């Protein structure tokens, strides 16, 4: 497949995530939209990884495992995402315990 397609698909997914972050007030949904954006990036990384693989194959330069870095990065991103979710959810839970809402409009304490 042309890399362009993946590019535009990833951009579209990412933008949907952005719109979600901008339009929703529920912290958990915003959280999910961020996950969506991460996934868009992941998808693009894998697509590029395969693109590099293809390039290496075409030029026949002997490189060990061309494009594997991209996939490993996806792996690390997933690791980071998992960690982030665990901490983030903990924060949301605590928040809910304190203000009984997950509406981010209540979170304007940054002003002070």
């Amino acid at each position, binding site marked *: 497949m042309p890399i362009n397609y993946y*590019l*535009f698909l990833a951009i579209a997914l*990412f933008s949907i995530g952005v719109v979600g972050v901008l339009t*929703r007030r529920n912290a958990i949904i915003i959280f*999910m939209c961020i996950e969506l954006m991460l996934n868009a990036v992941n998808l693009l990384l894998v697509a590029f990884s*395969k693109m590099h693989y293809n390039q290496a194959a075409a030029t026949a330069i002997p490189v060990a495992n061309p494009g594997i870095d991209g*996939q*490993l990065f996806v792996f690390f991103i*997933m690791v980071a995402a998992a*960690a982030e979710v665990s901490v983030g959810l903990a924060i949301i839970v605590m928040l809910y315990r304190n203000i009984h809402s997950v509406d981010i409009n209540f979170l304007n304490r940054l002003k002070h």
Partner: protein
Amino acid sequence: MSISAILFWVLSIAALFSALMVVTSRNPIYSVIWLIVTFFTISGHYILLNAQFLAVVNIIIYAGAIMVLLLFVIMLMNLNKESEPARHRWLQLAGAASGGAFMLVLVAALKDTELKSQQSLLLEGHIGLIKTLGRELFSTYVVPFELSSILFLSAMIGAVLIGKKD
């Protein structure tokens, strides 16, 4: 059109649709479910790109672990109804518009790149196999890998500390 191309288009449309549903659903439960659908389509893409390991991991971590966690939290907080007050209409419009503008700018900027002629190989190659990845992970990337485990540990401790009732 080859079967893989058809699969690509089907998966792409499904991914976009489900992603849109995540954002637009009023009920958080539905959003979570649509997000799981999105993850599955993305995993489908991984398989098309012959990255089986990532496809599996994606399902296990995201669809399996993270989403379940989210679902639990939502249900725990009893948010499974359309309790969310809508944002101000203008703000919503502004958010959608700026998100759209963002997409447009990106698309416009990238539509004429040199990458246009490049291809991502479908259903070929061995780099996405567990064996290859594992070998690479435990040789070149061993230090980051170990570091990521520390990250996990600290995230776990952090989550426990934050979530602790005080």
